[in-house]
């Protein structure tokens, strides 16, 4: 179909309110679009980028942000083996059953445990982090206006030093893509701050791409599976449709010969 046919359809869909609400509270300009392997109706996550992104999450994001709706076992979705999952979980102690004297205890984490949050609750997080709790990242890539493009633009959008005309606010950092350009979160990524085991150079841009991919996966973990099942279902339905149309024609032809 030529693109001009889509436009009235898209307009109608928007008029009918089928479009996401996300567009409504977007900042004044849309973040520049990046090419992502997972976008589009058939997109698939890049598994090695997901695994690199998880490294960034573990070393950087998870020190302030939770991802409490995921369990360690869910990480099988980025290609971690059962053994890697068990080892990752083991290093995260969880509160255990009280001991014989009623004292609280800790036990090693298990694959079924949810990912540890860095703070016991949002109030504690807000108190520690200058008044605003760092948002949980389980669905962040889905719920934040602009989605993955915004995440990438934001993570690569810090300006040090800030522009000359920007106000100086203690404890706030200048970012092109933060609301009001000022944000309490310090620049999280630096060139070479981590080493990727696969040898990919850990530039800020590369880390931003990888963590964005990981966050999108966390917000929609079954996308690969959904797209591949969808292709099989559609192929099946096309064959079924052809057979059904042939059957229907054969039946209805009887009426014409009557």
């Amino acid at each position, binding site marked *: 179909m030529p693109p001009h046919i889509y436009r009235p359809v898209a307009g109608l869909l928007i008029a009918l*309110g089928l479009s*996401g609400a996300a567009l409504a509270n977007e900042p004044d300009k849309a973040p520049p679009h990046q090419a992502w392997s997972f976008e589009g109706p058939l997109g698939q996550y890049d598994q090695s980028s997901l695994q690199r992104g998880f490294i960034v999450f573990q070393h950087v994001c998870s020190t302030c942000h939770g991802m409490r709706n995921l369990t360690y076992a869910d990480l099988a979705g980025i290609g971690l083996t059962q053994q890697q999952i068990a080892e990752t979980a083991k290093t995260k102690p969880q509160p255990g059953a009280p001991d014989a004297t009623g004292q609280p205890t800790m036990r090693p984490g298990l694959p079924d445990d949810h990912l540890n949050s860095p703070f016991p609750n949002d109030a504690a997080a807000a108190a520690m982090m200058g008044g605003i709790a760092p948002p949980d990242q389980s669905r962040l890539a889905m719920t934040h206006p602009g989605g993955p493009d915004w995440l990438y633009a934001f993570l690569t959008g810090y300006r040090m030093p800030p522009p000359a005309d920007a106000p100086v606010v203690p404890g706030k950092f200048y970012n092109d893509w933060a609301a009001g350009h000022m944000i309490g979160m310090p620049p999280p990524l630096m060139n070479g701050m981590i080493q990727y085991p696969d040898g990919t150079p850990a530039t800020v841009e590369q880390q931003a791409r990888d963590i964005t991919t990981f966050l999108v996966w966390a*917000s929609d973990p079954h996308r690969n599976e959904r797209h591949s099942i969808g292709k099989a279902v*559609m192929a099946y339905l096309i064959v079924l*449709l052809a057979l*059904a149309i042939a059957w229907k024609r054969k039946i209805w032809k009887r009426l014409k010969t009557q």
Partner: protein
Amino acid sequence: MTQPDPVTRPNTPAMTGLAGWVEARLPVISAFRAEYIDFRLPRNLNGLWNFGAILTVVLMLMLATGIFLAMNYTSTNAGAFLSVEAIDRQLAGGWLLRAMHMTGANLFLAALYVHLFRGLYYGSYKAPRELLWLSGLVLLLLVMATAFAGYMLPWGQMSYWGADVITKAVGAVPGIGPDLEHIMAGGDHLGDVFLHHFFVLHFLLAFAIVAVVGLHVTLVHVNGSNNPLGIEPRTPKDTVPFYPYYISKDLVGLILFAMVFAALMFFWPNVLIEADNYTPADPMHTPADIEPEWYFLPFYGLLQSVPSKFGGLLASAASLLILFALPWLDRSPVRSMRFRPLCRIGLFGLVAAFILLAAAGKHHAQGGWLIVARLAGIYYFSYFVVLLPLVSRREKTRPLPSSIFAAEGKR
């Protein structure tokens, strides 16, 4: 009308064995044969007549997926959001169950609107099908209530603030409003009691729908289907048996519908998903943009186009209730809009008004949309109370064909 089709149905052999034993005690086999094999339908039904079968199948899908979702759902303030997350993430195949249920809810309403439009366009509400029409409207109300209750259950921001808007709207009813609001909210705050009530209601209403569908289908089988010409079949030549004619046609319609369903569910889920509802309900933080699901937008537009809150509530309720009076508002003896040039234009205007109300609802009836919503709202009601009763009597209708078979020969 009950004469067997000479082409497909030779003599029925006498039933023997278990079938004969059951048949002698409860004639279900002959009843099934009469209603779903030999049952005669007008031979000229078009694609819009597929939607009854489509709705039945989607209803069964909703029940099947809903039961398994309910088994894994927790109806508490603290647990609801997390249990839905666990279904989506940790339950094996849970994401697929939930995707089917959500897509199904949206497409159920979409198919229902098409089905309703077909009834309006071909005059399916007229004698002798008034009860069929009324039972269908009861279904529409039940489905809307079920969809609303179901949308509360994930307990995200849109669930919570949708509940807030609706309970407060109910509170605007003069006199008993505050008490009604208290009963609906289950207390002073929306929480455990509210969720538990709506979980039970969602489940209960689903089965109420099944019961009314039974009545609705019975009424179709007693009165027979209307058809695009709106004239009753006169001879067996005007009709064909359900099997194999409409089985094969319904199958094609169902597969096409399944393809739209699958495409939305597997490839474009964001068309139907409200991302804001993936943020847990937070009474301390009002979202910037509270809006209902698309299928409620026309009524939301109407609600907001009236300056008084109670007035808006009345207008929305009236827009649905007026449909119940339709068989008695439209006095024209001609059913199908194909032969009613004036009312036909009027009906397309009604569809346009419905869509404009939805668009206005989407924009919270602000600025120019307020005027659009008011004009569309006025037109919506005038179609029923002015156009149909007055114009339909004077309208010069086009001549009706002598029979369905004759009309087909002419083409």
